[in-house]
């Protein structure tokens, strides 16, 4: 219900969704994992930063942002969370194996940009 359907139903009901209530990305969207290096407990492995990916699915419902929680903010903030698909050849240019091989991983919305 947190995907495109939510907007359709909310529109029909005349309900305005809050900012951030809907996921920014949807299945099939082309994204890039941000290449940033904040200090601390960030759950995006370095080998994926800057890599191009596709959104495979939106993980519902929104998930507690454990990157914030790890810093004791305990704000209970929730963020959209996505399962993304990355070809192995995108991660490793010299990948030894089928070009169809791939990696799947879950990433918070704050780590993705549209491409």
């Amino acid at each position, binding site marked *: 219900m947190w995907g495109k359907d939510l907007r359709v139903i909310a529109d029909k009901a005349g309900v305005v969704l809050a900012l951030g209530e809907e996921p920014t990305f949807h299945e099939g969207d082309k994204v890039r994992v941000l290449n940033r290096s904040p200090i601390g407990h960030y759950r995006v*492995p370095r080998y994926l930063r800057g890599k191009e990916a596709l959104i495979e699915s939106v*993980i519902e419902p929104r998930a507690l942002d454990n990157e914030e929680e790890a810093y004791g903010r305990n704000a209970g903030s929730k963020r959209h969370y996505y399962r993304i698909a990355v070809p192995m050849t995108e*991660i490793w240019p010299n990948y*030894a194996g089928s070009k169809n091989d791939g*990696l799947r991983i879950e990433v918070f919305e704050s780590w993705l940009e549209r491409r």
Partner: protein
Amino acid sequence: MEPHDHESTHGAHDHPHAEPGASERPGYYDMMETALRELLIERKLVDPAEFRRQIEVLDSRTPALGAKVVARAWVDPAFRERLLANGRAACEECGISSYDETELIVLENTDKVHNLIVCTLCSCYPRPVLGLPPDWYKLKAYRSRAVIEPRTLLAEFGTVIPDSVEVRVSDSTALVRYLVLPKRPEGTEHFTEEELASLVTRDAMIGVIPVTANQGST
């Protein structure tokens, strides 16, 4: 027993063994854990019974739970669909609670896709359904090679995946855990659900080996 007796009965196996529980000095993290635990108890923030209870929780989770889930998915198509749609809910249906509040994605192996699971950052593992991970799952060699050269790694487990089959590695990072739903082996059409479950091993549910009809869990 004299040391040479040990040697003579075990042939070349002549290195000394530490007694279980009487090994070397505790390491840095062992001491930190003990100190923290004792402080928590001393300040009455945690009851010792709570520690013991959590160990019981963990001890009750073994690969036999995952094997039951897999076998049920093989014999019950409706359950299989529910399992693939929402692994956590389908496991809860079988009485397997998600005590650590993690979600579960079940990854189905097919003729076209072979799934392998890893946690490159640490040791995320579907503990609610499989219990504690094997030691090798936590080693840096497994964690890095699973994403860098999964086919070579799988071959070392004796699992050779043809190029026509996609190797799909799922890297667990925070809130989601994975369980591989292996392919049901051929020649098991007449097996009961219990017999099927006895074939399913922990390693098959991690994705490093297939399930075979003549090799069960021990």
